[in-house]
Every structure is written in C-alpha cells, then in structure tokens.
C-alpha cells in the first residue's frame, strides 16, 4: 500500500489537542492513510477522527523541542496539536501535507470506506433523470428525454440523458452544442406547473467578435415559447464582461437574432473572485481582536454578503419572470456550470415547494449541481485557508447553500430541513467518506466507477436517525411561491458556518432544543387527547347508557 511510504511516523504518544470550545485532550496521535486520529484511551473522552482530505492547510511552530502543528480544515475549524519531539512533529507534518493533497481521486477515502450502517435505499439510484422525467411527462408532453449525449461525446459535462423540447431532434442538438460553450446546449432545468413556463440553462453562445449565429440554437430556444410570447435570457455577467467574452470566442444572444427574447445582464462574480472573498471573510471572522470598525470594514471588504445578495436577486428575478410575468427563461453565464446553477437552483427553491423538502432538496442538488456538471472536484479542492493559487477553487456551492439559508431564515416554517442539513452538505462537498461529490461531472463519475465503488451520501442521509436530526420541527408544507427579501438588512452572516468555531453555540443549541421540546410536547398531548377521544367513542358504543343521555 503506497500510503505507508508517506507515513514516516505512524504514531506519537503524549500529543495534546486544542480545539475551540472543548477541553484540551492528551493522547496518542495515529496517522492512517485517510485519517488523523487522536485517542486519549480513556472512556468518555471524545476522540478526534479527522479526514486528511478535510485538511486545507497546516502550519508548524516550534518552541524548544516541543512542536505544534496547526491544522486548518476545509470546514473552517482550526485545531492545534502539540507534539513532543522535533522529528516526530516534522514527520507528522510532512505526512499530513502529502496525504491531504493526494493527486489521484481513486486514492480518496470514499473508495476505501465501507458503510457501518445498513443501506436501506441506495442513494445512487434514488434520483435518476428518467424518474424526474416521468414527473415532467405527467405535466406536459412538450418535452422529450434525449440520449444524444449518451457517451458524453456532445457535452462532457452533461449527463447522458437531458430534457429538450420535443420538436428538436438530436441532429439539431449536435449543431447547437457546437455553438455553446463546452457543448452545453440549452436544456430544461425547471418546469413551472402553475403556468407551464420553463427555465432552461446553457453555456454562453459562441458568437465571437464576428457575431456568429446558429439557426438551430435560435430554433431550439424559440421552440420553448408559446405563440406571441416573449422570453427572458438572464446572462449572469455584466454587459461588459459578456462583451469581453466575445474576444475569446464567447458572447451573448444579440437582439437581432433573438427578437423574441429580452436579455437581462446581472453581475454575479466569477469563481476566483468568490474564492478571494471567502478567504477574506474567514480571515475577518477568525480574528477575535478586531474592533467593531475593523470587523465591519473587513466584512464589507470581503464582499461575501454582496455576492449573496447578487445571486439571490438574480434568482428572484428569474423566478419573477416565470411566475409573475408568465415568461420562459434561459439562464447562462460563461461556462454555465457555476453562477448559472446558482440561479436556476435558487429559483426552484423559490418557486417549487417540492425542492424545499429534504428529498426534494437532494433531488435539486443532484439535478442542478451534480448531473448539471458543477465541477465539485476542482471547486472544492481547497477552502478558505488555501494559499495555492490554482484559480480553480471557488465556493460556488457554499454560496448557494448560504442563499438557501437566507431564505430559510426568512421562511422558517417552509422548509422540511433545518440548518444542519445545509451545513452537512457544505462539509461533505469539501471532504467526505461518500462518493457523491467526487469528480467534476457525470462522465467523471462513470469513469471513476463511483456508483460501484463508493457509497452515496444520500444512502446515509435517508435513514430515520439522520433524517430526524435534519428535520425542521416547524415545517408545514405550503404550496406557495416564497419571495425572499434581498434588502441588506434582511441578509445575515451565516453564523452556523462562519462563526461556528469562533463562538459557543451552546445557548443557541439549547434554544433549538427547547423549540423541539415545545413542539414534541404538543404532539404528545394531541395524541393523548386523541386516544382519550377514541376511548370515549368506544365506551359510548359499548355502553348504551352513555348513548342515550
């Protein structure tokens, strides 16, 4: 096993672990191929099991012969290990560094992990495009499922099956694919049952500086319009950025060639800007010595909340076009794998009550992120403490989760899941024992054999004990469109992620428990009353005296 070569010192005794808001623990540190483990070998003391893949960066410090390793995790936690012995410390540090940055995906933990729980429902089979299409078919016959991409030859980042307008044949799709960035021809993202309007997504059109056009592309998207109706194209970039994209062969739909469509430009930032923003935000949150002025100024300078507002606003706009204007919408940015997905998935949260359930949200993540080809592997390979500048990493998915949290805060009774579910998805997107977020697209997942070799996160989540923890006790299904506020006063810092390790959440957790308690007690009494009522009814039927007063 090649991990052995990387582990020079597999165990060290007398290591002291410092964690936020927990007492220090002294114990034995063990390194395995995938975990950093600290065990005190005492009962009742919590052990530390840390996935190497969760480690974002490490720092070494020495005072005499006592070395310390500061481990900065992708879930934003920072822990410190005091290791006696300079050599041991150096060996551990270099092993962690090597093990946390393995190049080969197939060496990652999900390929070695065997579930310790009973898989009731295999998450890999829970959300199939064909099943989703069945739901669509029950509502409309205007769409068909095309397998034009079955061997990923048309579009590397699409799933083998995609929904397209019924009247558009595969040949047309092939032509359109050559006109769209990354071959991402317009496909169905969401069908709004209420009025039959649709949301599509795509890559940018490759108009270039010469203003190339593609009749098939025009035909495809026009096929989604009702007679005499107009549609909206939401370009997630500013007009300047879109304009500049022409020089690199990209571009946008011109008014002349798409007269039935009105284009709206928004300003969602590109991935490297978002990464910078995350780094700045976390830095601001982690410095406890800030004055109020400095904190607010760093929060502002990080621009994180600005991104949240921008993404939410764009999603609301898309939802508004569909629900209030009765118009169909096409969303794209440049590649169509980042800001586009933020917008289409959030618009569904707003419009579609089903996506606000636990299962519906999994389905949404599966459809609009995983199968839609958001490159999780590269985007989540580093988090806020990274100092490598590969420019590929970006908290695109985290921003989406943050936006969902904002809506959840504004509509606390409209979601079946609670904040913990969103935090869980954030953690697993960055480091996980499950294969769900490995690879960059459906083609990668096939190539890696994830379905056969790894366990799906959904297999683990969709079990009673997990679902209980993730269920929002206040949930009452409502079939309404929920319009969030995007005013700066309404958007909050997501404390559950960004301040999670910086302040004690004891009192807030207690408040949550109290809420659960109040609701459970109520249900208990209800069932007692109902039982009594039934008994009474029974007595009445059995006892004729009661029947005739």
């Amino acid at each position: 096993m090649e991990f052995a070569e990387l582990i020079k010192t597999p165990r060290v005794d007398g290591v002291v672990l410092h964690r936020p808001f927990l007492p220090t623990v002294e114990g034995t540190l063990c390194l395995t191929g995938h975990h950093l483990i600290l065990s005190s070998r005492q009962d009742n003391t919590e052990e530390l099991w840390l996935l190497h893949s969760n480690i974002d960066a490490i720092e070494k410090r020495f005072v005499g012969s006592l070395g310390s390793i500061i481990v900065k995790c992708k879930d934003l936690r920072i822990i410190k290990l005091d290791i006696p012995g300079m050599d041991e410390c150096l060996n551990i540090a270099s092993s962690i560094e090597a093990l946390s940055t393995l190049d080969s995906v197939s060496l990652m933990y999900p390929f070695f992990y065997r579930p310790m729980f009973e898989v009731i429902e295999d998450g890999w089979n829970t959300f199939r495009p064909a099943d989703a299409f069945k739901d669509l078919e029950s509502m409309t016959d205007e769409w068909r499922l095309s397998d034009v991409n079955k061997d990923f030859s048309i579009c590397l980042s699409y799933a083998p099956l995609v929904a397209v307008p019924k009247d558009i044949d595969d040949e047309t799709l092939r032509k359109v694919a050559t006109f769209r960035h990354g071959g991402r021809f317009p496909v169905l993202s969401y069908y709004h049952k209420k009025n039959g309007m649709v949301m599509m997504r795509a890559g940018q059109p490759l108009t270039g500086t010469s203003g190339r056009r593609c009749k098939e592309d025009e035909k495809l998207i026009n096929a989604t319009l009702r007679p005499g109706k107009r549609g909206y194209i939401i370009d997630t970039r500013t007009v300047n950025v879109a304009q500049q994209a022409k020089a690199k062969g990209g571009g946008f739909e011109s008014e002349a060639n798409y007269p039935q469509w009105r284009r709206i430009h928004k300003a969602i930032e590109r991935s490297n800007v978002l990464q910078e923003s995350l780094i700045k935000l976390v830095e601001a949150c982690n410095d406890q010595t800030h004055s109020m002025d400095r904190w607010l100024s760093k929060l502002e300078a990080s621009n994180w909340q600005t991104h949240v507002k921008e993404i939410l606003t764009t999603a609301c706009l898309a939802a508004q076009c569909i629900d209030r204007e009765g118009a169909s919408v096409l969303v794209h940015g440049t590649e169509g794998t980042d800001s586009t997905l933020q917008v289409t998935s959030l618009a569904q949260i707003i419009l579609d009550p089903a996506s606000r359930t636990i299962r519906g949200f999994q389905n949404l993540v599966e459809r609009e992120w995983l199968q839609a080809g958001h490159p999780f592997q590269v985007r989540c390979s580093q988090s806020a403490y990274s100092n490598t500048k590969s420019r590929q990493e970006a908290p695109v998915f985290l921003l989406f989760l943050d936006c969902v949290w904002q809506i959840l805060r504004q509509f606390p009774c409209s979601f079946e899941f609670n904040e913990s579910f969103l935090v869980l998805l954030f953690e697993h997107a960055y480091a996980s024992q499950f294969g769900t977020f490995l690879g960059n697209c459906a083609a990668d997942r096939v190539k890696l054999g994830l379905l056969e070799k790894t366990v799906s996160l959904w297999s683990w989540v969709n079990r009673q004990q997990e679902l209980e923890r993730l269920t929002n006790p206040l949930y009452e299904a409502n079939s309404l469109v929920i319009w969030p506020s995007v005013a700066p006063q309404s958007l909050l810092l997501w404390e559950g992620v960004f301040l999670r390790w910086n302040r004690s959440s004891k009192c807030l957790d207690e408040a949550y428990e109290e809420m659960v308690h109040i609701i459970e007690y109520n249900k208990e009494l209800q069932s007692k009353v109902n039982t009594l009522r039934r008994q009474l009814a029974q007595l009445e039927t059995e006892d004729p005296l009661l029947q005739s007063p």
Partner: protein
Amino acid sequence: MEHIRLPKVEHVKLLDRVSARKSRVGTLYLTATHTIFVESEDGVRSETWHSSSSSSSSSSSSSSSSSSSGVSLMVHCKNFQLLQFMVPEEQDCQDILLSLQRLSQPESYEELYCFAYKPNVAEEERQREWNFMDLRSEYKRMGLPNTNWKLSFANQDYKVSDTYPSEVFAPESATLPVIVGSSKFRSRGRFPTLSYYNRDNHAAVCRSSQPLSGFSARCLEDEQMLGAVLRSNPRSEVLYVVDTRPKLNAIANRAAGKGYENEDNYSNIKFQFMGIENIHVMRNSQQKMLEVCEQRSPSMSDFLEGLENSGWLKHIKAILDAAVFIAKAVSEEGVSVLVHCSDGWDRTSQVCSVSSVLLDPYYRTLKGFMVLIEKDWIYFGHKFSHRCNHLDGDPKEVSPVIDQFLECVWQLTEQFPCSFEFNERFLITIHHHIYSCQFGNFIGNNQKEREHLGIHTRTHSLWSYLWTNRADFINPLYRPNHSQTQGVLRPSTAPYCFKFWRGLYNRFERGVHPRQSVEDCLRTIREETEQLEEQLASHKQVKVLGYPTAWIFTPDIRLANTPQDYTSCFLTSSPRPAGGSPVTPQDLNQTSSFNSNGSDQESGIADLSVQSPFSEDSARDSDEAANSAA
C-alpha cells in the same frame, strides 16, 4: 386648536416606500395629538392613525419638496417610521408642515398627550395602575435594608440633590454629614448611592456623578463616603470606581472643576475608564445609522459601510463591555463597583441597568425589566423629556441613551434566546411609548418634576398596561427553570456578535422582515398545548374535533409575501409608473433612453427599483452601432 392651520386635507396620497403601486389616497386630518389618514377607496374606510401615538411628539422633523403631481411631505417619526405624503396643493402642504412642526414641538408639558389621554377607566383603577410599581418592595427583594445598607432620608424634599429620588439607600456607616458633604463634592449633588445589591456575596453596584476634583481638590466626606461603600461589602478589601467616559473627556472635565477620583486620595479603590462616548456623539451616530436605514435600495456595501461609519454598533459594544466588566467584578470577584459618568444620569444609567440584567435573572422577566427601568432610569433621574425631545427645547440635549439600553438588551436576547421572559415586541413597545407620551411614566426629567406635574394623579401608567397585555410579550422559549435562565449571563462581546436591530430601526419597512415568525408559531403551539393540558386535566368529555394545527401561517404569508423589486420597472409585475400594460418595444426604448444618461450600471444591479438591466443592453447596442458605423 390655534396651532392647526388646516384640520383636514383631501386627496392626499400616502406613498408606500417600497412599492409605488401600493400608494393609497385619502384624507389627512390633523388633531392636537394625532395625524390621521383615512383611506377613501371603494367606499371602504380604512383608517390609519399615524404615529398612533401623539404626533405632538412623534413627527420629529418634516420637510417638503414639490413635484409635478403635488408637493411631497416627509414625516420622520420618533418610532423610526417614515411617512411620505403627496399633497395636491402647495399651500395646503405648507400649512400641514407648519402645523406639524408646531404640534410636534409642544412648548409646555400641559400640551402632551398623556394629560389628554382618558381611557374609560375609573379613577380608582387609574390610581391602582400606579401602585403596580413599588420600588420599596424591589429593594426588599434584594434583601434591603440590612446591616450594610440603610434607607436614607438625606434627600427628603430634594434638598441635597433635586435630580435624585427622595429615598435612596446608603451605606450603614455613612452618616448624614458624610452624605451631605459628599454630595457637595459631586456634580448636581448626586452622591454615591446604591443601584443593585447582590445578596449572595454582598457586592453592590453603586452610582453617582463625577467628583468636583478639578486638578487637585479633595473632599474628606467624599473619601469617607467611598470608604463607607467599601465597608458595606465586608468580604472585600477593594472598591472599583468605574468612570464610563473616555479618559480624555474626563480629563477635559478637570479644567471645569470636575473630573475623576484620584486613586491616591481614596483608600483601596481601583479606578477604571470605560470609554463610552457622550450624548452628542451618540445622537450623531444614531442619525447617521438612520440615514443608512432610510436609503431606498442600498447595496450591501452601502449598508455595511454606512453602518460602520455611523459607529452605532461600536457604541453598543462599549456599553455592553462596561456592563460585562461590572457584572464580572460583582459576581466573580465579589467586589463592589461605583459607577459614574459626568452627571450620572446617562451612561451611568445604561451601564448600571445592563449589568443588572446580566447579574440578576429577575431583571430578565417581564416584571423585573419594568422594575429595572423604573429604578435605574426613571427614579434616578434620566432626563427623559430632554433626551427624548418631548418638548420644544435645546436640540443638543436630545440623545438616544435609552434606545441604546433597549438595544443592548435586545443584543443579549439574540445571544441568550431562552433567558428572557419577554420578547422583542416588548422592547419595541416600551421604546414606542417612551416617545409617544401617551403614558405619564417618562414625562419630566426627574422625580421632583414628576411630582410637580402630578403625573401620578393625572396620567396613566405604561407598566400596568404592559402587564395587562403581557400575553403579547411573552417569549415562548423562556422557562423559569431552564439553565440558561438562571445565574449570571456571560455574553460574548466580540464584534461579530452584534447585529443591526432591524426590528426597531426598520420596524415599519415590512418588506425586510422574515415572512414567517418562529416565535409566533411557538406561541400558538404553546397556547394550544395549554388548552390540551386543561382538557386532559379536567377529564372532560373531549370536544376536540380533530385539532387543526393552528400554527400554519399560510394566510399570513399570502398577504405579506409578494416579490420585492428585484429588478426595475420593466417587468409588469413590478411597480410601473403608469398602468400595468405589457411591455412593448416602445417601453423598452423609453426605459433605455431614460437610463442612458449616466446611470451607474454596476450599482443598477443593487438599486433594483430605479435601474433597468436593459440600460446595459442598450449601452451594448449603441456600442455595436458605433462599431458598425466605424
């Protein structure tokens, strides 16, 4: 009323600040105490009593500006409501403006609403309202008087300090000459006296004004007084003296013959500055913050920058930091603390009361919180009428000192959601009535003035009103036996723990608040639970017919939940200046040309209600046109 130039104006439009379509047309009435807007549409009479409290204190400033469809009148209320009226005739608008300006700045106490407010309540009942609050029993609750503290009558008939209450607690060993001597060495005669006594360890929070020490003056009695305060805490060998001001301010006061205690002159004191700014800084800070709140569609950066520049949260943090210091000294070190600022009625009241909230769970109950305000604010002479601008007076005397206290408590409720018996609505209601002048509690600047005005004989008390309606103010998460409820609160004062209080400062901007309220849900559930408990207890034949889960707020959402202006007026569902006709290419051109004159495209993204995304499109098109022409 001679101040009302125009009692009634018709066809006035009340603009909705968020959505222009929701504007209402009606008749505006001015009365001596209220501005009333009666909507006149479809024969339905819907009345809005604006600034439901008295306009005589609520509209703090109004201004007018004219436009084509009439003259616009902005009314800024003290409860942070912002009303914008469109009045068809300029002269009418001018008359309303002048009337409101006069009505909102009464010249004498007699004009205030509390003296006119006569609900249908018997005189006996009205008297009982005032008996609800009894500070003697509060001191008794603390365990006083005892061997360390005695009730002193030194200030009977207000002869020692006219801004102090007539009855105060003083150290057992402080003789009358010591008290009187000390008072002569303190600003406004406000000698050291007891604010809070911790019966568990005998440590006390005491309050006074600054000493008149100048550069070198001493006062034997004052030194003896502090010695007496120290001795009243037998287990402690030291007394903290906390000057809540920034050191520079305190030094500046020395030049005026005032100042702070010299550690060398007083035995066993430890002196500490706290750095809370004065009333003028606070007034300007709140003004700046309110300007940020009132922006129509600020970007995130505008908002955060504005919030930072206002300095408001910094000041809130400074107050809480000081309170935490005192609570820690009293509870952990068992050391008594003497708190003062300059006159000892602004920062001192803030810090004493916030630290009391931290120290004693009683002050986190509904009743206890009212007692606390009565004791540390009303009783000890916080100058409500000056600070809240109840009467036409010196604008430099106005300052949101009490707002800051309420906000500190709100910040604490955010950190300790189960620790307070009352909810946010309670704090906001108290705030509202501090400014409304409907009740007599906050009228006047001190006890002496209130006695002179006959507040207790002529007005009603807010406290009994709040107590009668306490069901509205209960925090459903509060449980008296919860661990969070008991003991001393130890809040974090890291800057990120402080939030903008949307519930107060944007109270009337309905669009920015959560559309569903966890608290309301829980309250309903608890009410239902109580009914269920009763039914189970009474063993009655249950009449329950399939209890509906009454806590679904669907109709509520339906009403409140409409899209904000996520984009400009180009969508038909967004407010449009004229009609709701579908968008036509002509419209598009109009919007484009309207926006092409130098509107900032980037901020257009944020400023959704004004800008059109198509402005970018048109910019692009004109670029293209230019390109092809070239």
